[in-house]
């Protein structure tokens, strides 16, 4: 063995190790590359895929688009426009080309050539002028002036294009020449525009024809997108908003969000991550560059390392992204003052449930049910104002005293007197302010409503045995009722029933003769009751969900009381004095020698002058029915019952020993949150405030023994907490050992899944917003009136009868009876565009008195032909103001309203209009009421005599020209007028008197309507009769 053989360098081979290491190196490199793309930077993978898919999509879209454009371009209309455009261009070309040669070949070079020497002299003169202005010596000024004169007279040799000889010109010559040429140039260019006008217009028309027919992106858009895609690079896309310190990198993966082309998951290879934002309109209002993404959607905008982290679904992230079913939670935090937010239906439903189902009876939420709070603050304000006034009066007195003092100088005295006077004037201002506050306070007493009925009247209203049965489980007795089911035991039911019964007021209730149930049924179904109430059970149910289902009314009600209620639901048995905290009796009035009369006109306490609650605190309005009709309806309702329903006797309800126990239970369960109950008028809410519930730290939400389960199942979130609680309010008592009174009190509302989603959305969005004030929707213009108005519109369920916004349905739209062509004309009018239609003064009057009469109240003031009628809501002044402003704002009307002056009618015009109105060709009087009772029963449109006070002339004209545009499906036909030149003419045979009449005939009819009198109506009627 040689040494050489032993040499490890020669003998031991490292190739094995090298292979292994290089393999490892290669693997780790691949791993590194993989990690770069998909591991720590998954967004890179997304971007690469996006680019590929987008390319592919654009290519296919282009094909389809090219086909469609080709197809449109082959349409005869397009071809004709195209041909006309080219022809017009051709026709205009010679002259336009001549102008172009003259301007570009002659004038422009000349102007440019002359401009240089001219500007040179001019700036020189300018400099000298400045020197004159700043120079102090007159002699210098004079010499400078002389220089200017010389300059102006100096002759310049100017070479002009197209002229062989140089021209000799002085400054004024040049100035004049330049002005001449410039004027000539402007004139020629204007002339060119005129010449080309027809061609330009046609071209615009042709292009519009194309763009009107392509709903998606046009080829141009596609090309520009493709161009920008060519420059695509893989990098983090982020929105940085400095003042909020917001960094949102969502678009690093969601790359299609703001693409001009509408991308769907299907068009992007099934990858939902690349879809465009579903609502471009919404995105325009909430520009991501200003708002970012996460303020609305939640999630962790800066995170990029995993989908879970970016969406904020990791344990400690405070703002997890809202799930699809709660997506509108993001709206609530900034739109916190609203009850109705446009385009946020789920959220609106959630708010509405919170209000209507009585959540706000137990849970305070800023803005909801605020009348009570407002009464307190108004009273405090009055108190402060009174103090201020007293202070100023005293001070004024002192000032006058000091002024009267002979030692005071005249000047000083005058000052003091003036000061005293100022204070007096300011005090008088306070008087005006206090007067306003008093009115507001009176309004507020009217405005405060309860979710449930008053329990003070149960003795008169209800059959006694029914009460314990109802308390056991309201949902079992009446499916879908507002009243939730409390987990009461037998003892509690007995005690509560006993307290309610024994604390009820007693009053005189006249005994009523019975009515006609058949007539009552007809009235119930057509007067408008069903806009709020439903009738029938299960699949038979028809009508609104705003108020109770009355299918079993006959089992619970006392007929005499029901008649009074239907006749006037606001009528109370006894007025309540909040100051004395008691229901007044006849004796209280007698003491002061007053009759026991209390209503909206007699609403002060005889004992202490305080504002009384003289109405039932129900939103149910007065339909102004006759007593007979009220009896018919009540008789019908008394027939509504289950056959053979039996109720156990309830004599225990008179047991005085139960009363105190009952009171304690009622307090414990917070019944007074929704009901007026004697002795509990000032009860506070028993639940947690929920205004900021969505941002309460998760550890403060009591999952009790379900914490581990929630964590395992992944609902240890606000959403999870709310959903479980709403589905089963006792869920967090599971497994707990608790005394009855310590158990969770929240009752079960039997919410459906969509209802739970809606309320969860609302609560999830109820956060202590971490965004700056500019994010909040707090408009200072008319939009504020819309926000305010919604609260009133929803409070009284205006939308049960009326369409208030586009796309909404009313209860009438769904009722079987109103599907019939005849009954369809019996639906209450739509209020879309109401602000543009009616005079606000009139609307105010109408809302206060929908009969438009003090004496003849058994009717609707405008549409007497409708079976349904606008009821009297006894709105407070504040509410009337809000409703009027709401409609004005929805139609962007200027306030206050100032009516347009209409040109007076000549006698001849009046005759002409009358002839047209009553002609066989113009059907106005066939449908519109005329005041003739025989005719009016068949009428289907309002009387013209109301028009001039009620309507706005501009609206009337738009209406008669095309009513279907404002109110699709209206009984008023379209096509009554056609345009001839620049004015409208009646589309039908005209009376001979119209020969030679050149004015707008639609205007004529509008002017006629607005100068309409009862006398004119009778003239019109007599000329129309016989046809």
């Amino acid at each position: 063995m040689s040494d050489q053989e032993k040499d490890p360098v020669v003998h031991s081979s490292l190739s094995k190790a090298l292979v292994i290491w290089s393999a490892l190196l290669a693997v780790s490199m691949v791993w590194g590359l993989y990690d770069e793309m998909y591991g720590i930077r998954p967004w890179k993978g997304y971007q690469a895929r996006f680019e590929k898919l987008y390319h592919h999509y654009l290519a296919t879209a282009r094909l389809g688009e090219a086909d469609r454009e080709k197809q449109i371009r082959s349409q005869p209309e397009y071809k004709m426009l195209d041909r006309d455009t080219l022809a017009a261009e051709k026709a205009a070309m010679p002259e336009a080309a001549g102008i172009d040669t003259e301007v570009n070949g002659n004038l422009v070079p000349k102007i440019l050539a002359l401009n240089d020497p001219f500007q040179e002299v001019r700036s020189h003169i300018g400099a000298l002028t400045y020197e004159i202005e700043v120079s102090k010596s007159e002699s210098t000024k004079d010499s400078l002036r002389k220089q200017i004169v010389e300059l102006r007279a100096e002759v310049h040799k100017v070479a002009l294009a197209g002229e062989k000889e140089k021209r000799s010109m002085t400054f004024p010559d040049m100035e004049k020449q330049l002005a001449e040429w410039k004027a000539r140039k402007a004139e020629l260019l204007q002339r060119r525009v005129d010449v080309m006008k027809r061609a330009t217009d046609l071209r615009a028309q042709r292009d519009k024809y194309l763009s009107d027919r392509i709903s998606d992106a046009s080829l141009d858009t596609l090309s520009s997108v493709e161009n920008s895609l060519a420059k695509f690079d893989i990098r983090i896309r982020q929105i940085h908003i400095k003042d909020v310190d917001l960094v949102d990198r969502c678009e690093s993966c969601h790359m299609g969000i703001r693409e001009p082309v509408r991308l769907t998951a299907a068009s992007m290879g099934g990858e939902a991550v690349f879809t465009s934002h579903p609502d471009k309109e919404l995105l325009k209002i909430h520009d991501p560059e200003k708002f970012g993404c996460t303020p609305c959607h939640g999630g962790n905008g800066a995170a990029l390392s995993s989908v879970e982290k970016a969406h904020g679904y990791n344990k400690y992230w405070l703002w997890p992204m809202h799930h699809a079913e709660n997506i509108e939670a993001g709206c609530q935090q900034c739109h916190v003052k609203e009850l109705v937010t446009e385009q946020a239906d789920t959220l609106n439903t959630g708010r509405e449930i919170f209000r209507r189902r009585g959540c706000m009876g137990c849970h305070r939420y800023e803005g909801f049910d605020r009348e009570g709070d407002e009464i307190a603050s108004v009273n405090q304000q009055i108190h402060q104002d009174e103090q201020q006034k007293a202070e100023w009066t005293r001070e004024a007195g002192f000032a006058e005293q000091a002024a009267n003092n002979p030692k005071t100088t005249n000047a000083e005295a005058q000052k003091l007197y003036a000061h005293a006077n100022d204070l007096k004037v300011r005090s008088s201002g306070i008087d005006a302010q206090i007067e306003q506050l008093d009115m507001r306070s009176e309004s507020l007493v009217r405005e405060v409503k309860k979710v449930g009925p008053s329990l003070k009247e149960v003795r008169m209203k209800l059959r006694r045995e029914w009460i314990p049965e109802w308390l056991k489980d309201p949902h079992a007795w009446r499916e879908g009722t507002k009243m939730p089911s409390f987990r009461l035991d037998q003892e509690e039911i007995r005690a509560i029933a006993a307290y309610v019964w024994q604390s009820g007021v007693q009053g005189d209730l006249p005994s009523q003769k019975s009515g006609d149930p058949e007539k009552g049924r007809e009235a119930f179904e057509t007067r408008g009751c069903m806009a709020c109430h439903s009738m029938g059970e299960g699949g038979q149910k028809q009508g609104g969900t705003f108020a109770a289902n009355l299918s079993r009314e006959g089992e619970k009600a006392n007929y005499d009381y029901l008649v009074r209620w239907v006749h006037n639901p606001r009528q109370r048995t006894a007025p309540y004095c909040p100051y004395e905290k008691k229901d007044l009796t006849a004796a209280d009035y007698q003491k002061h020698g007053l009759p026991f009369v209390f209503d909206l006109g007699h609403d002060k306490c005889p004992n202490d002058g305080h504002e009384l609650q003289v109405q039932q605190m129900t939103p149910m309005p007065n339909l102004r029915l006759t007593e007979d009709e009220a009896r018919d309806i009540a008789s019908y309702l008394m027939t509504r019952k289950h056959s053979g329903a039996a109720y156990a006797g309830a004599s225990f309800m008179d047991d005085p020993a139960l009363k105190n126990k009952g009171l304690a239970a009622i307090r414990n369960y917070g019944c007074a949150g929704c009901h007026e109950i004697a002795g509990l008028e000032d009860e506070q809410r028993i639940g947690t405030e929920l205004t900021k519930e969505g941002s309460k730290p998760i550890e403060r939400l009591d999952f009790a023994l379900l914490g581990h389960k929630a964590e395992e199942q992944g609902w240890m979130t606000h959403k999870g907490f709310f959903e479980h609680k709403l589905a089963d309010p006792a869920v967090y008592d599971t497994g707990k050992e608790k005394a009855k009174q310590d158990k969770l009190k929240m009752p079960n509302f039997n919410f459906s899944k969509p209802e739970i989603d809606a309320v969860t959305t609302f609560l999830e969005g109820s956060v202590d917003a971490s965004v700056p004030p500019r994010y909040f929707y707090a408009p200072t213009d008319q939009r504020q009136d819309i926000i305010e108005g919604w609260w009133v519109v929803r409070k009284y369920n205006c939308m049960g009868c009326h369409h208030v916004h586009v796309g909404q349905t009313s209860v009438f739209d769904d009722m079987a009876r109103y599907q019939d062509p005849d009954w369809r004309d019996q639906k209450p009018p739509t209020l879309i565009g109401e602000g543009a239609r009616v005079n606000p003064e009139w609307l105010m009057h109408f809302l206060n008195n929908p009969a438009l009469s003090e004496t003849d109240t058994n009717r609707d003031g405008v549409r007497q032909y409708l079976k349904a009628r606008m009821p009297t809501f006894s709105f407070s002044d504040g509410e009337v103001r809000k409703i009027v402003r709401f409609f004005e704002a929805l139609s962007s009307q200027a306030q206050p309203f100032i009516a347009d002056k209409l040109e007076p009618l000549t006698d001849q015009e009046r005759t002409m209009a009358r002839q047209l109105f009553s002609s066989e060709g113009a059907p106005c009087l066939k449908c519109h009421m005329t005041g003739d009772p025989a005719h009016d029963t068949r009428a289907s449109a309002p009387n013209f005599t109301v028009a001039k006070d009620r309507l706005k002339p501009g609206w009337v004209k738009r209406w008669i020209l095309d009513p279907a545009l404002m109110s699709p499906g209206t009984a008023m036909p379209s096509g009554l007028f056609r345009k001839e030149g620049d004015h409208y003419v009646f589309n039908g045979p005209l009376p001979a008197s119209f020969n030679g009449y050149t004015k707008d005939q639609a205007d004529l009819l509008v002017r006629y309507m607005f100068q309409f009198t009862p006398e004119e109506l009778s003239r019109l009627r007599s000329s129309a009769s016989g046809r």
Partner: protein
Amino acid sequence: MKKIWIAVGVVSALTFAGCGGGEKTETKTAATAAPAGGAATPDLANGATVTGKVIFDGTKPVAKTIDMSANPTCMNAHKAAPQKSEEVVINDNGTVKYAFVWVKAGLPDQTWQIPTSTVELNQTGCMYQPHVIGIMAGQNIDIKNSDPTNHNIHPMPAINQEWNESQPPGSADKMQSFPRQEVMVPVKCQIHNWMRAYIGVVSNPFYAVTGDDGTFSLKGLPPGTYTIQVWQEKYGTQEQTITVGAKDSKTLDFTIKG
């Protein structure tokens, strides 16, 4: 390193090839679907015919007289005999007039040729003439006003778009169509609120309105099993199923109980 890029290149080439293949298949499906897109017409020579009548069973209801007293022009048109309501019209042979019969289901999924001819709906004597018409979706209705007074035509569809147009005396006919199938579309004139017509809008050509003999006939039906529906203004709808082969001639009677 180079090899990796080659591999990447090969892979991406394959991917592109894959994409290309996908596109090809798409074109193929589109090509086969194309000929099926053409609109069909009833095959009168080889198709089946279903005929029948709509029989009324019960006491003939007394037709109400329409009160036109508020509109003298309309009254004048019926001087000889006052106009009766056409809600239920029973022929002398005990059959029902103005019943609408149509193939509601069972037809192959295809588009049918829309006739270029129009169907007339005339307003005469302040009545719609005829009271019931059938049209194909997309086919034009020729609406005439033969009266010396103004009418408004107000169809009140539930599915199609609603409109309401004034048609003064002596004005040109209106051509209108409904793009979607709907049985039936009621038509009303607000000015003369007794005026009522019904339009059956069907997306196939197999429909008929019974006339003075109460019969109907549906011709050129492809072989198959069909649900045939009859509609009557007052008595609602009823359905029967029938199976026909090529060139079959079958009878199908309906009985409406009064």
